């Protein structure tokens, strides 16, 4: 099978300007992936499925990944001339910027006919709040149907073109997306006998440190 770079070149030759980026995977598994743009994703998926040399007929695994907004502190060294006329000083300037997060959907493709794979496709939403629509690949691979519903339920990615996009694991009136990293559980705290870590912190909120026990009255 082609390497992921060859595959990208092959796709770009067929779809010029499709905007495909190779996302390298530094782990020993070396399963690199292709980041697609939402606009061309479905055409590329169809091509991957139907092209005789590729024939990725099985979409094995669909999953979401949440990348929250990250605050990044950039440190730049700036040389300032000394107003007093001395030698210029080197000052470190720190600037904060927020790298916008995104919701990512990952597809693992295999070819049963040609026995190769995986090819990993990634799609990213523009942000995590209002612009979370991605094209559904259910029309290309039927196996995406329930898995995309699951990503919609747990991560909140809206799949345009999905035939039946409803919550699948949680109930219909539920409003949260619990697999997001910033999900906060409803506080139905129960006394736990063995708290530590986060549970201990939660326990302290519910049972603040008791006042010193009053001394037992003497008979």
């Amino acid at each position, binding site marked *: 099978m082609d390497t992921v770079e060859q595959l990208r070149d092959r796709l770009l030759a067929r779809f010029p300007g499709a905007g495909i980026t190779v996302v390298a*995977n*530094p*782990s*020993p*598994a070396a*399963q690199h992936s292709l980041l697609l743009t939402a606009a061309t994703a479905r055409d590329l998926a169809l091509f991957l499925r139907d092209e005789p040399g590729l024939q990725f*007929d*099985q*979409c*094995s*695994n669909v*999953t979401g*990944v949440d990348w929250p907004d990250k605050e990044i502190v950039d440190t730049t060294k700036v040389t300032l001339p000394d107003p007093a006329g001395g030698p210029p000083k080197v000052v470190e300037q720190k600037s904060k910027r927020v790298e916008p997060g995104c919701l990512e959907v*990952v597809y*693992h493709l295999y070819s*049963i006919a040609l*026995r190769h794979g*995986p090819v*990993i496709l990634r799609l990213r939403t523009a942000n995590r709040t209002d612009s979370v629509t991605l094209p559904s690949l259910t029309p290309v*691979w*039927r*196996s995406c*149907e*329930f*898995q995309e519903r699951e990503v919609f339920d*747990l991560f909140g990615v809206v799949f345009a073109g999905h035939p039946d996009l409803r*919550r*699948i*694991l*949680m*109930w219909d009136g539920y409003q949260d997306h*619990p*697999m997001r990293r910033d999900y906060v559980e409803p506080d139905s705290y129960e006394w736990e006998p063995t708290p530590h870590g986060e549970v201990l912190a939660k326990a302290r909120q519910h049972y603040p440190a008791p006042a010193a026990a009053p001394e037992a009255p003497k008979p």
Partner: protein
Amino acid sequence: MSVSDLTPLSAPGGSTVRAVHDEFHGDLLEVSMGPHHPSTHGVFRMIVTLDGETIVKLKPVFGYLHRNHEKLGENTTYLASMPYTDRLDYLNSMTNNWAYAVAVEKLAGLAVPERAEYVRVILAELTRLLNHSCLAGFLMQDCGCSGTPLMYAFREREKILDLFESLSGSRMMCNYQRFGGCRVDPSADWLAGAQRLTDGYGAFLDEFEALLTGNEILMARTQGVGRLSSALAISAGVTGPALRATGVAHDLRKVDGYGVYPRFDFRVPLGDHGDTYDRYMIRILEMRESLKILSQALAGLPGGPIMDPKAKLRGFRPKAGEAYGRIEGPKGEIGFYLISDGSANPYRYRVRPPSFINLTILEDMCLGRTVADAVIILGSVDIVLGEVDR
């Protein structure tokens, strides 16, 4: 479809039975099967729309056993997720353990000693025997054959569970595999026990087949029921015996050749019709192949360590990256997708559940059949709710 609510019988959680109207079919009945239903293998629920007795629509409802496996996996260490994988598909904890270990070993680049690979194969094939016998028993239960085949299957299952218990300490929740090997080295006694079981299991299969395979009632209930075409099965991501019953030669033991499977001589049974009877037969034939693998693996088990000496139990922090590892579980391709950010907990921990994805085509198989057939078709897909809902 215009659906008008006429008589909702009970309010919260959906009504049990109600009349609906369809422009094409006319008056229909919508029946909610489950989550408490003796034939849905746990807490699965189907909303079945019936025209007379014929199914015109079937919508599965999931989530009644959604116990947040993936979220918990992201909040605990790599090692701590291992006992949780036991509880995914709770009949087959050994293969779940193995799939997770494969994914982590890929992520961290760990090697596995040869003896451990053999032991993993032995345990995985024992698990396959256990799962397929129980499946056949449950399937007969769904056909209305109350008790007897299931009891025979459970009698044999107890023998395998005794082996698991004496090796790993627990009947069902083995928590046996580790990253880079296995936890305990099987003793000579244990291996002799496994050999005895392998030798005796063929006789049980003969008896089981004499009881079931030629049974006319079983044939009448299952042949031609729930047919699945191979093209749809591939597109829907169906894996495992359900895919092979449609005639697609796809077995990860052959395709990926993971572990030491390429060293063993076994065949992949394939079906012809893709119906319920084929799915039953595939499992019986697979058990016979498993016995072949077992006797080869037990005969060829090499010595040496069972754990990679470099593998660490505590403080395991793989480098940043991601990996998808998969094996052929008894129910299909079970895979784990892990993203590491270099910390002690996985950043993303995803299970590719075979029985969940195999349910994608449940509606396609059931359309035009009766409710009694739907029960059998569901039984032949072989689901475990712990894995479907995670």
